[in-house]
């Protein structure tokens, strides 16, 4: 019995000492490494004096939109002679992004450009990164004002809301019922756009439009399909569905087109995904939709990171910088108290240009 106790204690002690011992050994090698090991110092030097390291953290892996953003980012960084790290979190959650940020802090990168999965939950990790001297910017989807230096906004929230509202006004012909099919109830971007749309709707010319419901498809094709079908049977007079999310618009387009429904669709979607559904005639469910170029979002993110690292801008409102061949950009105040750089107005995809864009992204 005593021996058993002993072995148990030994096991625990071993684990504990190992956790500490092994770690300190590592530290030892590192400590001595910077002094004696030429190999180590050489590497350290190269990362200090030569190439700067710029990291981009996407929302999730396996998504072509995120991939295009990362591509644009990487292209610019490498052209400017920096080192680029592309990191996808293991799942599309803030939890997973925290681990990724922590890992980047360990690697001592110079800047992190992140598309946040949650506005608030990254604050601790990003603050720690900024304390460690890393320049933090967001792109595509922002973290709150305290946890970033600036935000590369793909298009102003109001501009998107305005574009979508005008599309709805146009497609409905000025009056009638319409509904929103969003992603999840906590999707930062979607909520901001929906709020903007509701705000714009108060204007007189939209007074005959009636927003009947905001449904959430959780960015799952199955649930989005259920929700779209429910909207159709619940509101027989529905004229337009607006889906400001790539998965949702895709599922809704499929439902409407398959059922040859008279309800039309607009929103934000990837051209490559939506090419099949865009058209003016009744056989197509979506007359036109909007999006921005994710490659350009990534590229502007890269130029912003570079400008932050070399000190051209600090992320304060009023700072100006040149984003290569993309032209000059100014940092402006954002509505949440932080600052942002706005890429431009959302781009309209209609039957005339969809064929040209569907192979791009």
């Amino acid at each position, binding site marked *: *019995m*005593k*021996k*058993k*106790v*002993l*072995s*148990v204690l*030994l*096991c*625990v002690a*071993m*684990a*504990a000492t*190992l956790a500490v011992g*092994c*770690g300190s050994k*590592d*530290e030892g*090698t*590192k400590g001595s490494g910077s002094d004696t090991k030429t190999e*180590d110092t050489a590497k350290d030097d190269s990362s200090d004096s030569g190439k700067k390291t710029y990291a981009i953290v996407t929302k999730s*892996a*396996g998504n072509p939109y995120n991939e295009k953003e990362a591509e644009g980012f990487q292209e610019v960084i490498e052209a400017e002679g920096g080192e680029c*790290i*592309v*990191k*996808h*979190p*293991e*799942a*599309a*959650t*803030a*939890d*997973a992004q*925290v*681990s*990724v940020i*922590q*890992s980047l*802090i*360990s*690697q001592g990168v110079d800047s992190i450009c992140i598309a946040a*999965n*949650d*506005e*608030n*939950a*990254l*604050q*601790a*990790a990003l603050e720690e990164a900024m304390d460690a001297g890393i320049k933090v910017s967001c792109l595509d989807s922002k973290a*709150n004002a305290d946890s970033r230096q600036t935000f590369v906004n793909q298009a102003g929230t109001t501009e998107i809301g305005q574009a979508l509202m005008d599309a709805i006004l146009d497609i409905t012909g000025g009056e009638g019922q319409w509904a929103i099919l969003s992603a*999840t*109830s*906590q*999707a*930062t971007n979607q*909520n901001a756009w929906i709020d903007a749309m509701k705000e714009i709707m108060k204007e007189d010319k939209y007074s005959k439009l009636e927003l009947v419901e905001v449904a959430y498809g959780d960015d799952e094709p199955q649930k989005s399909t259920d929700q779209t079908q429910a909207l159709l049977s619940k509101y027989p007079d529905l004229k337009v569905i607006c889906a400001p999310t790539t998965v949702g618009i895709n599922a809704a387009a499929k439902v409407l087109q398959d059922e040859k429904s008279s309800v039309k669709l607009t929103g934000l979607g990837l051209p490559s995904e939506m090419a099949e559904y865009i058209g003016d005639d009744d056989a197509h469910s979506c007359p036109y939709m909007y999006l921005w170029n994710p490659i350009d979002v990534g590229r502007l993110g890269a130029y912003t990171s570079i400008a932050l690292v070399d000190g051209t801008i600090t992320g304060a409102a009023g700072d100006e910088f040149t984003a290569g061949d993309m032209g000059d950009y100014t940092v402006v105040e954002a509505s949440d108290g932080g600052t942002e750089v706005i890429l431009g107005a959302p781009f309209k995809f209609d039957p005339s240009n969809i064929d040209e864009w569907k192979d791009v992204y």
Partner: protein
Amino acid sequence: MAGKSGRTIVNVPEKSWKKTLLCWEGMLVVLFILINIFCASISQSYQVSNVLREMPKYLTEVFLMLPMAYILILGEIDISVGATVCLSATVTCMVCNKDMPFIVVVLTALLVGTVCGLVNGLILTRFTELPPMIVTLGTQIVFRGIAEIALGSGGSISLSNADGFRMIAGKVGMIPYILFVVIIFAVIFTVVLSKTTFGRSVYAIGSNRLAAYYSGIHVQKIRLIIYMVMGFMAGLAALFLTSVLYGANTTTGNGFELDAIAMAVFGGISTAGGKGKLQGGIISAFIIICLRIGLGQINMNPQLILIILGALLILAVLLPNIGGELKLKKKAASVK
């Protein structure tokens, strides 16, 4: 300490160094060393300060692994813990934003967790025919659903005053507080499982529930307690997770239950019940954490990391089985 339970166990095998090393836990310790050497060799930044800094988020899962090991040894499973963490973190943030004293915030986290565990436990002990997996699947959806309702249309909440949580996230030198808390709880859970009648009852229930019942063990009472403890620890995990996130959202704690189960199983705890030691689970938890940190630092594709972890999980169970079978065959051959 030896005869505490009033019974003496005769068939304790003689311990030798060779045996200690060859048992599963021994091999895990060796593996732990190897993994650390491996990680240090592939990543320049795998240093003690960095590893300790990255660890707190992963350590929250160890809180879940400890009681999960008990549940697995019972031959049961609880897949609602991730959702419990989510609900508890959500309520905690809300209470904290009401400017309550920090002790109230801490108690809220633990209380919400315990209540969730109690709900699981009550359903499972009232309707003993129900498989734990399906009950906890149902409560998983409900707990996360309640959190979704509480969070409202934003789906996310931030701390207006993170001072208390900044304190929890503090460090002694380089070592974060959470590591101490994990070690303390690990020791408590290990000692209770291996040294008390309670622990032995757990094993007894896990190996043969009916026999345990007839030998006078309060099976349902013990199950209820364990599920409550599971909830309590989920509350604790939520508290520390909040100190890492400064907020909560509807995806908080997603997939924690599977990570916790994987840690326990990799440590040699059988999901069929009645078998395994918590020491193994604890060492394997640190193996998995170190591997994740190391592979994360060389920017390996996260899906590839999951493939590696999945393969490790299967191999960890498959290899000893094959080894055992070969030994049996050898024995059979030699007898012939």
